[in-house]
């Protein structure tokens, strides 16, 4: 299933008469460009200056109120829903103070490209997001998105997309990504998905199901029934499949779930338990861990099948692993020193060395997609999510709760999700925190959730 996202060089075309737009030949399909690359690098800045950046996001206008095939309703309702999604996205990362469509006047179509700055200035908005939606013949939806600086009375960014009706929320995420990138200097991340384990039932008989959802929890879907314990999913970089651990047939083995065919197969046949599957950033390799006679080691094999390569050979438990973004190195977990600690090796298994020296135990390392940080679980009393640089220096805690574990990075390396277990009840939930550690919130899921695995920005 390919998603068509067209970027239009000029949005003026979209606002012209529908007939004109229809006769225009479709422009080449290219991803919307992010307005700036890079942004912050190395140390994370203090975000306090951003806290009061007020952004007004009124309902998107439409050229005609007509029914759509989207779940949002007609074009008027769709325009309202678009602005609501963008508001929620921007609200949840601590950089902005967005005001959404429920408390703002709806602009007319003609104002989308010529904002009434006076109105927004008097409401105290510093930034303004405008947009429109239009139903195309054939059911597709065209969405235009504009960011204005109210004080400068200037357009800062604009983009447009035509999406199938079932993918309408993606246009809102793309618009939020445009605004986020332009204002923060960071790479986008809202248009992405999360695989996780949905949990229900009592503590001693938890039902654990593989599930997927958008980065904001929408489009939630269960992939397995719960008849079999499912754990530790990882989205492939192209979003076409998911690696995960299943107790299908009673023993832990690694399966590849194909999302295009809704079928699954064993990663490889084994008489021994297999744990902790991981993709390489290019999707060509799979890391996994094998327990043989009680001794666990890390292997890699080509994702398409082929001979496994044994990467570790210590008498302790070596498990997990996360590639550096360039694929040249792997950070992993080992108890060869007597307790769980974080180690780094080259992607061929050479040059293994410990990098965590903080006291306590250090587990579940995950390399940031930006390459500059490693997130992990630090265990010293409580289980806390922490980051360090790849040399093992500059430990910083992001959370402090009874049991937080298994961090996963947003595609832009700016936000981390993890799961939190409640003392006593054992109830779990997926939480999100930004790199400052200040902005922590629970992700709403239909039932309890654990083992979040954040995929890359969608292609």
């Amino acid at each position, binding site marked *: 299933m390919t998603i068509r996202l067209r970027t239009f060089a000029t949005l003026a075309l979209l606002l012209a008469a529908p007939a004109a737009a229809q006769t225009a030949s479709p422009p080449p399909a290219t991803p919307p460009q992010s307005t700036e690359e890079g942004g912050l690098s190395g140390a994370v800045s203090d975000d306090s200056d951003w806290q009061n950046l007020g952004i007004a996001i009124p309902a998107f206008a439409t050229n005609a109120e007509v029914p759509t095939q989207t779940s949002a309703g007609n074009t008027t309702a769709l325009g309202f829903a678009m602005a609501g999604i963008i508001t929620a996205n921007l609200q949840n990362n601590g950089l902005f103070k967005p005001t959404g469509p429920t408390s703002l006047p709806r602009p007319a179509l003609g104002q989308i490209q010529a904002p009434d700055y006076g109105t927004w200035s008097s409401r105290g908005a510093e930034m303004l997001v405008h947009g429109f939606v239009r139903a195309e013949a054939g059911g597709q939806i065209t969405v235009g998105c504009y960011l204005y600086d109210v004080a400068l009375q200037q357009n800062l960014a604009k983009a447009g997309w035509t999406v199938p009706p079932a993918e309408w929320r993606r246009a809102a995420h793309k618009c939020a990504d445009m605004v986020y990138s332009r204002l923060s200097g960071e790479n986008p991340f809202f248009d992405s998905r999360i695989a996780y384990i949905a949990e229900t039932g009592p*503590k001693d*008989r938890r*039902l654990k199901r593989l599930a997927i959802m958008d980065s904001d929890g929408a489009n939630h879907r269960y992939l397995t029934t719960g008849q079999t314990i499912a754990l*530790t999913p990882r989205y492939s970089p192209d979003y076409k499949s998911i690696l995960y651990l299943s107790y299908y047939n009673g023993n832990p083995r690694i399966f590849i779930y194909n999302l295009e065919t809704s079928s699954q197969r064993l990663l490889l046949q084994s008489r021994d338990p297999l744990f902790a599957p991981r993709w390489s950033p290019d999707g060509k390799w799979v890391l996994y861990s094998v327990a043989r006679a009680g001794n666990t080691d890390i292997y890699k094999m080509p994702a398409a099948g082929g001979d496994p390569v044994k990467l570790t050979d210590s008498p302790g438990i070596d498990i997990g692993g996360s590639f550096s973004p360039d694929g040249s190195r792997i950070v992993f977990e080992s108890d060869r020193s007597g307790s769980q600690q974080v180690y780094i090796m080259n992607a061929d298994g050479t040059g293994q060395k410990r990098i965590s020296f903080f006291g306590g135990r250090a587990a579940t390392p995950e390399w940031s997609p930006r390459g500059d940080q490693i997130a992990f679980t630090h265990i010293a009393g409580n289980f806390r999510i922490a980051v360090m640089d790849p040399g093992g220096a500059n430990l910083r805690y992001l959370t402090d709760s009874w049991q937080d574990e298994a961090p996963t990075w947003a595609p832009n390396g700016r936000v981390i999700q993890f799961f939190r277990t409640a003392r006593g009840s054992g109830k779990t939930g997926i939480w999100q925190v930004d790199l400052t550690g200040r902005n922590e919130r629970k992700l709403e899921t239909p039932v309890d959730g654990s083992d979040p695995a954040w995929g890359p920005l969608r292609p």
Partner: protein
Amino acid sequence: MNASPRFATLAVMLAGSLALSACATKAPKQLPPDPGAGVGTNSSQGAMQGAAPGSQADFVAQMMGQDTIYFDTDKYNIDGADQAALQAQAAWLNRYPAKRITLEGHCDERGTREYNLALGERRANAAKNYLASLGVDPARITTVSYGKERPVALESTEEAWARNRRAVTVTID
């Protein structure tokens, strides 16, 4: 070293209290589709008087709690109490040489999920190796780790965690 608490007495009481309602059960290989307010996967439940010799129910009844051995935090060594339990298991297994067993390795909740899967496997293997040293053919023994996914004690206390760090021997009927 011998800090692992023993729960033989508790197990016997539990088994007795459940005897009226219980059929012989063992830890299910897979979670049931719709969990209700059920009891745990305590292997000692369901022991009945007069169980068929050589059955799992007979094994549980005969072991009186010694079908399970316990471990210290992050450890997988077989201590004195574990040795006694495994010797009792080996004696039973030697009486029924056709019986196969599954050794389930478990951990407490105070560990990360994947590491606990590996640690549970290590515990199950330690028990397997000790049984083998007592003359039980290792080909009769399979191991499976549930990590921290299948606690029997539900509180978040030191005592509950001690009860969950275990290897349970389940005979295959």
